[in-house]
């Protein structure tokens, strides 16, 4: 069967351009925003005009200027430099928190969906209880119960993000596992006497990657807000860390005098979240397409 070629084979660069044009627009915009954030996060510490805790960079509360685009806070620190320095902290905290949540949620959810029975029942009730608590309240409970000596520890923030996301991801993974577990190749593995762990790793996980990736992307898009909220409430990192939520909280008293010191970190946070969301929405659409095609 001869397939009429719409266009003759062209150079590689041309093919990439065609591929790029086929992606959803949200994906393209999101990717550009994300790339800018990533570049800033990686290279920022080397070119930021001032150090993140360097004082006396100018007249405190002097507002916007070319040398201090986000103004200067009451301790005389350059807010723009602090935002640049904080970029990698925010990104690292949210991504690693989501990743740990994904890992824990996927393992629990897949096992629960495959095994069923009392294990599934017990776990699902537990997860439902966790989901029913508003996530910020849950995060505060977790931090409070960790005790004062651990507060301000970045690892605690990461774990709290994971704790908030894991139950939600586990539910999605469980649904995927229940669907995959009915297929014959899983029955074959069961008849062979494979352990649940091995079935999960070899048979379920590879077939659930599409769903899980989309889930990861969607959760990661909201994680900076969660980290920022914790910082704002004073349950996140400790000063003088240039974490964005913490900066907004520190400068909130100045919002009438120099609003840019609050707006600056706020804009950085907003653009990261919008970028991540656009990117993940586009990614979900691309993956959804290929996942659906792969099933046929």
């Amino acid at each position: 069967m001869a397939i009429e070629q719409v266009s003759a084979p062209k150079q590689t660069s041309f093919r990439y351009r065609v591929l790029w044009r086929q992606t959803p627009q949200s994906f393209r915009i999101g990717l550009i925003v994300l790339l800018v954030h990533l570049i800033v996060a990686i290279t920022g510490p080397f070119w930021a005009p001032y150090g993140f805790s360097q004082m006396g960079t100018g007249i405190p509360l002097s507002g916007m200027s070319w040398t201090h685009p986000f103004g200067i806070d009451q301790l005389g620190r350059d807010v723009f430099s602090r935002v640049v320095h904080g970029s990698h902290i925010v990104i690292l905290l949210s991504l690693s928190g989501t990743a740990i949540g994904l890992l824990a949620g996927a393992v629990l959810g897949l096992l629960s969906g495959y095994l069923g029975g009392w294990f599934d029942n017990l776990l699902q009730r537990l997860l439902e209880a966790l989901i029913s608590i508003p996530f910020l309240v849950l995060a505060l409970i977790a931090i409070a119960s960790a005790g004062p000596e651990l507060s301000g520890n970045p690892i605690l923030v990461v774990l709290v993000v994971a704790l908030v996301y894991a139950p939600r991801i586990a539910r999605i993974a469980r649904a995927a596992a229940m669907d995959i577990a009915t297929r014959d190749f899983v029955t074959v593995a069961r008849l062979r006497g494979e352990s649940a762990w091995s079935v999960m790793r070899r048979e379920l996980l590879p077939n659930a990657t599409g769903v899980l990736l989309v889930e990861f992307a969607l959760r990661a898009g909201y994680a900076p807000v969660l980290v920022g909220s914790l910082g704002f409430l004073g349950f996140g990192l400790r000063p003088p860390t240039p974490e964005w939520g913490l900066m907004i909280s520190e400068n909130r008293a100045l919002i009438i005098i120099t609003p840019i010191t609050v707006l600056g970190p706020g804009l950085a946070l907003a653009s990261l979240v919008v970028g991540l969301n656009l990117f993940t929405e586009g990614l979900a659409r691309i993956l959804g397409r290929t996942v659906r095609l792969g099933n046929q």
Partner: protein
Amino acid sequence: MTGAQQLLEVRNLSVGYRQGGGWSRAVDDVSFSLRPGEVFGLVGESGCGKSTVALQLLGFRHVSMRLEHGDVRFKSQALTSMSRRELDELRGDRIAFVPQNPTTALNPGIRIGRQLTETMLAHGRVKNAEDAGAIVGILKLVGLPVDPGFQRRYPHQLSGGQQQRVCIAMALACDPDLLVLDEPTTGLDVTTQEQIISLLSELRVRIGVAMLYVTHDLALLSQIADRIGVMYAGRMVEIAPTDEIFLRPRHPYTQGLIASIPVIEDLSMSRARPLRGLLRRRELPPGCPFAPRCDHALEQCVAERQELETIDDARAVACWRWREIAPVPAEPAPPAGVGTLAARAAVLSVDHVSVIYGPKSRGFRAVSDASFEIKEGEVFALVGESGSGKSTLARAISGLTAPATGAIMLRGEKLADTVRHRSDQQRRLIQYIFQNPDASLNPRARIGEAIARPLVHFFKMEGAAARAKIADALGDVRLDGSYQERFPDQLSGGERQRVAIARALAAKPALLLCDEILSALDVSVQANILTLLRQLKSEHGIAMLFISHDLAVVRMLADHVCVLYGGEVMEIGPREQVFAPPFHPYTHSLLHAVPVPLQRPDKPSKAPKATEPRRGEAGCVYAGRCPWQVGSICETERPPWREGEGGLGLRCHLTLDQLNARAAWPPTTREGIAV
């Protein structure tokens, strides 16, 4: 051919489907015509474009499909250039469609009576959706019960055969001139299929409707069609009257297709060689599409296009060598029976096993009191309609479903009820192969990894040793070692089933549970896998529990046959004894339902009295449906187990002599096929 006489004319039809960035041609220059009241059969392997042609007769259009050239004329009107509105008036009214799968074709939320009048309402034949007269009229036409209770049922409360009758009734509601049927019996049991076919034959006599019958089953087509068109890779390769197709097939593809039909009657009959190879649409030569698989292909075949050429009255063939070619005879099939079976030890024995779904006292009795033995190296076939408990038994043996009572012994050792409590050794010795090869392979694992799993798990084998074993296992199923690197979606259905068999063989089992492993495959692929199973049997001496509803296949492969009905063993014995009188009445009806080429059903079979087996009631499970029922004793007393010659056993109130007198085999009216 004058246009005025024809009901339907298809001229030079070519249809393309969107594929990747271009268009691939699914139907290529197909022409045929139908007279009023004629039944035209369209046959070919999957992917040959037969359903696409059928949909074109309904004026079907879709964004990913385009009509490249040609037209379809119905009563001299071109369907291909009609507007949507004009088509809507014609479809359902003059041209009606019967789909393949009645379960998904009927709306599950609408009662049967209302559903039946939908077509009539759409075309203004009735004013009221509950028009009792109209409903009773069409229900009677298709032999369904007319009582109001039946009309109030929902589709899921009907059996598959009844659902298909409802679909046919809906299609016939407006008394159309043409009925397009797309594989209408493919999902149904043989006995149900027989009833549907005799209903269709009866309908064409009574109301004179013309039919286009699309199927992959040539034997079935011979029972109903007047003329048959054989399609291959989107082209029509032969058109001939039904008898001619079977007696003198001209195209090599037709010859191979006929030879691939398993024959139930006579195993020694000389036959042509079944089709070899596969239809690969991407690698078609510019000339005859069949050339890569043809035994007679010359260079000219590959290079030059073969046009459909009229060679006789109402006969046309697209092969320029049709005068000279003769079918290539098949190698004689090795005898299936091994002979000294009695001396062999039993590998598996099933002892009074019952399987009940739900609570033991009032649950659903899927299998009741089944006992049999499978000897080392023999093929033991389980036969019966869907719902007869065949797969449930296999699941119980494999440990997926726990039996309620009874014991299953593997080489004299009692097996635990569930697979979790069995030893690795026991799990290794019993390997399960599933019906659907698409679902039995992990789509994200390479073929090599899939076959490596049993090696790693049972033999702790890894690295080079495992790779050699994988290549061996692939060799056992006649696949090349290069398949290791592929993913399942790069394989055809037949190749996937081979991989599933290879994976089972890699565990070095003593017993293979083959659960309908041929039914999802095309006839030609079926014939190849069947040959493979035979070879495996003689090479490895593995015992097989072969579950099938296809008696012809069972007859070719099995040593022992067990017939199940409603979860109970009806008849059991060596193949020669089961396929010869005395027959159990159920075995006899199964044998008679198998379509045999050129043999039309003698008379329209009686409508089934009861469709459900009488599970858990007094008397015989088959009572109520049995054509030879003795009397009330069948409904009150459980029939005795009768032992016949050569290890035959059956459960019936009639004595063996009485059964002997009832039926002869093969039926005297049948004639041999000169292939």
